[in-house]
């Protein structure tokens, strides 16, 4: 029978078709005159393609076989190979999920009728970004990979500068562009060296390269720099906060929830090429990871702009993922399967979790921006009353991202913790356990950051009465975050099933692993945890019922908040987000930097005065910008080559090519 062999639909083909469909979905909108039609058709295509793609990638994840497609063409770098193995399929899931959710969200957030100039371009590049991420996950040819990578990087740039009439946005765009191309330069070196090692641009299969060869270290370092810059690992994170803050919110959701993971995927994929990696690699990854986590969340605590806070927390989460990856690599180097399993399970599950709660929070912040017209947390307050649904969804995201049970963030951190603890009984790598208190510190700081975020937006009373009257969001803006919130809760309540999603990818990463035993063991532990989570929910319900019963018997009255005797409290006297984090910033002032101005008060009747706390970006402002301006001055003479004449630029390209060909001869 025709369908008996592979089924009617080859899932790999479905995933590829879905990826391409999303990529082309924005094109009709570019040519349609009437606003709105293009956006609607694009959203419909994207959602259906995402659903199909999600189903296909789930099926591919559990497929043991890998389907490979070869496209023969005459380009100099060899035939283009596309394949989807379990690792690719695992990373494809967040792509389809978040892109579909963000696309639906854009209908209400960036309606075509109100944004006639920007909407078609935004929709087009949104599709292109999604599609390029899908393709780079499938690419098995180094050059094709780089092409997809560049399309991704550039479409993200065009999405980010959607509101380019603002100066901040342009600046963020430039910083992003420089950072991403620095990364790409490293990747070019990385893939060229790989090609020199293997003889072709086809990416090597798992474990074929020796990690002992002299080039291996350089390849790994270049991959770490190139992919790490995209993922936002410290100190390569400089572009991240401003880029994520200034992009439209559904784009930030995709950038943070998915695009950063492409960097992680790159590191992950590169590591599979090598057999027997030295301990140093894992060590570097783990240390860079935990440093990113601590510093990232420390920066988040100090922020005033809510999207910047979320962006800094992305650095933290990528740090946690990288730590897990590092632990797993230490396990690979020391042939310790438990460590590989726990590190990898923690990292992969955190990738999945972060692609649930971070887009949830970015979409939530989109709702808030749509309602209030500002990103400054200190101007907000009391939105929980006018938009209760959005507030609830945002709360779920905030609790989840702090790694608090019974939501999903806790599950992945739990796996990492038991990974750290697992070496206590062993004779080697015992010091790994010192990562546990650091991760605990990260959790504590995350709680400060997200209490600050949630409370200053949704709780209390509005701090700025001039703000436009906010309103609850429309259905298309609430449904995507609601879906993500449900996923957060599901993974938190039934973590043992979520763990099954990561097995195939771990197995593909480290085939020697007898996952069956380990996964049964840790699945059982997560099963116990799920019971404890249910017990917690049951206790909450029980206490609530008792409390309601008690309340039904007593008189309830309402009054204003107790002002400790002071009768003239105003909304502006509330604790703002900045005042909330002020104590933490002063305690951790070695890591968090704020430019603080305090008023001097003189005399018995002081006149009005001014104070401010502005978070700074030390690395960018103190190191990168001065170095770049120095370089700019030194190489000022090259400006003569830059005159804006297109035909001369093409001549440059031709001349370069010619010289290179002569040289190769």
């Amino acid at each position, binding site marked *: 029978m025709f369908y008996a062999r592979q089924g009617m639909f080859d899932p790999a083909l479905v995933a590829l078709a879905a990826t391409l469909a999303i990529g082309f979905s924005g094109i009709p909108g570019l040519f349609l005159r009437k606003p709105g039609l293009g956006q609607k058709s694009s959203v419909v295509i994207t959602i259906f393609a995402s659903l199909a793609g999600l189903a296909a990638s789930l099926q591919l994840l559990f497929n043991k076989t890998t389907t490979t497609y070869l496209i023969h063409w005459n380009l100099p770098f060899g035939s283009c190979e596309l394949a989807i193995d379990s690792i690719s399929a695992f990373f494809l899931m967040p792509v389809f999920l978040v892109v579909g959710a963000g696309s639906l969200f854009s209908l209400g957030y960036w309606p075509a009728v109100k944004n006639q100039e920007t909407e078609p371009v935004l929709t087009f590049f949104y599709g292109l970004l999604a599609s390029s991420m899908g393709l780079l996950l499938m690419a098995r040819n180094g050059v094709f990979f780089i092409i997809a990578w560049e399309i991704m990087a550039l479409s993200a740039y065009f999405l980010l500068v959607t509101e380019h009439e603002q100066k901040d946005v342009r600046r963020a765009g430039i910083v992003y562009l420089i950072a991403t191309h620095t990364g790409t330069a490293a990747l070019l070196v990385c893939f060229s060296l790989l090609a020199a090692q293997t003889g072709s641009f086809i990416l090597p299969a798992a474990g074929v390269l020796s990690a002992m060869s002299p080039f291996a270290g350089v390849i790994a370092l270049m991959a770490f720099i190139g992919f790490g810059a995209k993922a936002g690992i410290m100190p390569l994170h400089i572009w991240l906060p401003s880029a994520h803050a200034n992009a439209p919110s559904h784009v930030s959701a995709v950038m943070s929830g998915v695009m950063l993971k492409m960097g992680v995927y790159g590191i992950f994929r590169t590591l599979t090429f090598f057999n027997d990696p030295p301990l140093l690699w894992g060590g570097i990854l783990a240390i860079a990871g935990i440093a990113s986590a601590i510093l990232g969340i420390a920066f988040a605590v100090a922020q005033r702009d809510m999207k910047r806070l979320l962006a800094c927390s992305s650095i933290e989460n990528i740090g946690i993922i990288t730590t897990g990856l590092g632990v797993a690599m230490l396990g690979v180097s020391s042939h310790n399967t438990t460590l590989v399993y726990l590190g990898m399970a923690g990292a992969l599950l955190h990738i999945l979790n972060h692609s649930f709660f971070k887009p949830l929070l970015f979409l939530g912040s989109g709702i808030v921006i749509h309602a209030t017209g500002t990103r400054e947390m200190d101007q907000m307050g009391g939105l*929980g009353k006018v938009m209760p649904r959005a507030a609830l969804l945002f709360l779920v995201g905030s609790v989840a991202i702090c790694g608090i049970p019974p939501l999903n963030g806790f599950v992945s951190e739990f796996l990492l913790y038991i990974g750290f603890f697992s070496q206590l009984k062993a004779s080697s790598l015992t010091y790994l356990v010192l990562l546990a208190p650091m991760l*605990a510190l990260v959790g*504590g700081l995350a709680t400060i950051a997200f209490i600050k975020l949630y409370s200053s937006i949704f709780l209390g009373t509005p701090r700025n009465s001039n703000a436009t009257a906010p309103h609850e969001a429309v259905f298309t803006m609430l449904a995507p975050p609601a879906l993500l919130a449900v996923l957060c809760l599901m993974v938190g309540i039934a973590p043992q099933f979520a763990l099954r999603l990561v097995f195939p990818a771990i197995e593909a990463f480290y085939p020697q692993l007898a996952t069956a035993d380990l996964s049964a063991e840790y699945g059982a532990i997560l099963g116990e945890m799920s019971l404890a989570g249910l017990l917690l929910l049951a206790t909450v319900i029980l*206490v609530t019922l008792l409390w309601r019963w008690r309340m039904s018997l007593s008189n309830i009255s309402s009054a204003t908040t107790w002002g400790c005797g002071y009768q003239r409290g105003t909304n502006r006297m509330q604790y703002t987000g900045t005042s909330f984090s002020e104590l933490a910033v002063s305690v951790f002032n070695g890591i968090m930097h704020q430019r603080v101005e305090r008023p001097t008060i003189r005399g018995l009747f002081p006149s009005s005065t001014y104070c401010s706390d502005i978070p700074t970006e030390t690395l960018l402002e103190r190191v990168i910008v001065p170095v770049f301006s120095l370089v700019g001055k030194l190489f000022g003479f090259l400006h003569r080559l830059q005159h804006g004449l297109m035909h001369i630029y093409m001549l440059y390209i031709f001349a370069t090519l010619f010289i290179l060909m002569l040289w190769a001869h």
Partner: protein
Amino acid sequence: MMNSIIHIFLALVLPPLLLGVIGKTKACFAGRVGAPFLQPYYDILRLLHKGTVFSTTTTWIFRAGPIVTLATTAVAAMLIPFGSHPSPISFNGDMILYAYLFALGRFFTMAAALDTGSSFEGMGSAREATFSCLAEPTLFFSLITLSKLSGSYSLSGMLGSITASVWMNSGAALLLLTGGMFIVLLSENCRIPFDDPNTHLELTMIHEVMVLDHSGPAFAIIQYAAALKLYVLGAFFIRVLLPIASGSQFIDWGLFVVSMLLLALIIGVVESCMARLRLVRVPQLLVAAAILSAFSTLLVIR
């Protein structure tokens, strides 16, 4: 089964008594007769029968604060072994859940405080957030030390295997550990020298100021949850400090109750002999506690 029932019964009934003992001790030091031992129970019962005032600023978060705090502390009480008896719920890695359950309770307490829009409560929750963040590493260093000494990854296993002979062999590590843990016990439960649960001068406090707007049954829940938290963290601490077991089940329960009352007495003595620290000193002491327990960790994993 019997042990689980006693465990739950004690967790439900005993906590306010600890507050009573602390109060009585402090009264003795001050040369007063003091309130009866059962006064905290009377207070809670009285509050349960009172009416409630809700601020017009608040939303459901304000009402959820006390409920979630009590629920999380109650589940944490199920994870911690009381004396030499293992806890009703125990699995590998439960110590991580134990640590993070308190984070959930704290999250909702702080959110409830900020929901009132009062700057006093904002101040309180900012302090709580910062200080509990600093206390977090201490708990984890202690867990590492205990896990290494016992070779177990669950709270019951860790605490169950601490015996007098472990104290003989790794006394230095355990001493450092108990020092760090005692500091965190006092700070997490908002006792002197970190916080003074008795003053009602809002500017000086942490926990009391966060719950300033709660009244009636909600405040009863808060009082009870605070007592339960002291009880749960205290049970952890006292088990490390006094790992006594007689072998007989019922004598062990008796020993546990006596040791908990002894802990309350110690806390009462500390509170009577010390003044509250200046706020800027609090982070320093908490970091010192983290370093003490980090020392103990280094001693055992070297």
